[in-house]
């Protein structure tokens, strides 16, 4: 397993958000986590790279456990894409992508620049390289943030609801970039309700409810014949919304 999550727990006060969640991704796999809101999906993702410190459980990346000591080193190759992009306002698109390899990995400026340009091409934004975030649409900003993640040459990318801050007509461009990444063999763990992405690109759907994983399986099975009644109800509603919109 490239990413191994073992029995991760998290509570806020008396409220148990994660009741011991375990999952694994092997190299090149992409999995989509779905489930009702307030179920702990985003908390799980943040616990995986310790943006939120879990109360218990362990996370391994490529066989090495994440600890407070190695966390910065590990995060370099465990990228995170946020719901609201969080681009650096004062930097042009290309500098947003360049800063990681240059300042964190210590790559030479010229090399980092070329790499940044290459990643912007990959998300289809080479022509907007010199725009500031405020000059980009939401969909473009999210693609820049994906390029920023890619420039760190990560082993795994975690996506936290990457399209839910976007207008419906802008989700498509982000979803197609993500599908391409999955097809290129990137290892991805995605919290999202995008049924199309899940159908096309996910190797497995993980259904979470009430702070635990209820069931998981390939999309062909989960969308057609899930074991749990709750999973069926939820995915049915999602499917209808998708067709309706």
């Amino acid at each position, binding site marked *: 397993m490239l990413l191994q999550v073992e029995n991760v727990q998290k509570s806020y006060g008396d409220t148990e958000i994660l009741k011991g969640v375990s999952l694994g991704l092997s190299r090149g796999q992409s999995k989509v986590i779905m489930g009702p809101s307030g179920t702990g999906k985003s908390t799980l993702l943040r616990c995986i*790279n310790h*943006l939120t410190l879990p109360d218990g459980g362990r996370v391994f990346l490529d066989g090495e456990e994440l600890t407070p000591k190695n966390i*910065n*080193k*590990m*995060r*370099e190759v465990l*990228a*995170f894409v*946020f719901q*609201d992009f*969080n*681009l*650096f*306002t*004062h930097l042009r698109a290309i500098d947003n992508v360049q*800063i*990681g390899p240059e*300042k*964190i990995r210590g790559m030479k400026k010229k090399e980092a620049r070329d790499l940044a340009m290459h990643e912007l091409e990959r998300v289809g934004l080479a022509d907007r390289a010199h725009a*500031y*975030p*405020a*000059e980009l649409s939401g969909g473009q900003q999210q693609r820049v*943030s994906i390029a*920023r993640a890619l420039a*760190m040459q990560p082993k795994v990318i975690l996506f936290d609801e990457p399209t839910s801050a976007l207008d419906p007509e802008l989700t498509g461009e982000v979803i197609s970039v993500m599908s391409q990444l999955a097809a290129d063999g990137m290892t991805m763990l995605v919290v999202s309700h995008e049924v199309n992405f899940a159908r096309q690109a996910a190797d497995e759907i993980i259904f979470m409810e009430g702070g635990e994983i209820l069931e998981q399986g390939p999309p062909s099975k989960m969308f057609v014949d899930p074991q749990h009644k709750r999973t069926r109800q939820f995915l049915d509603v999602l499917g209808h919304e998708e067709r309706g919109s």
Partner: protein
Amino acid sequence: MNDFVSFAAESLPEILQALPVTLSLWALAMAGGALLGLVFAWCRVYGPKPIYLAATVYVEIFRGTPMLVQLFFIYLGLPEIGIVLDPFTAAVVAIGLNTAAYQAEYFRGAIRSIPSGQMTAARAMGMTQLQGLRWIVLPQALRRVIPQWSNEAILELKYTSIAYAIGVSEITAKAEEIGYTTFRFFEVFVLLALVYIVLTSIVAQILQFVESWTTIPGLRS
């Protein structure tokens, strides 16, 4: 009027002899205040509780007492515990410590105004908190703080005149001296006021230029 012009032509060069003292006093105090202010701002935003409290106490003391009292304490009070400073140094220290307290508050406000998600994103890439501050938060916060910082710079430029009280011969001291030798206090202080107005206008212009020069779309101050 002609009378004033000829008086001014004679006295202005004398006043301006002391200009380097005023300007270096101001520049050193502002620079020291900016460095210290940044450190205190860090303490107030990111510091653990004891450090946060210490910085808060500092800021409250220096904002809550008159600068003249601080100056007298440093120049006249500290020698009693063995710290003897010459007047110029004492004035730099007093004005610097005072402006540090105000600048800390401006820096703190500017740092807090940067959406916290950007620091989170920096940390998520593997930056340490200091790297995030250095590469992401400060470049934005420093741009945002320019208008307030300009006010502070102009205020302190005028406040350098209190150094007169401990015998630093800056431009106010010089003007008073001219007054006593010519007994033309009215004219000399009008002239001095004009000098201050020109100085503060120049500083304001320069900082306004810096502000527009560093403007970035989407990053309003």
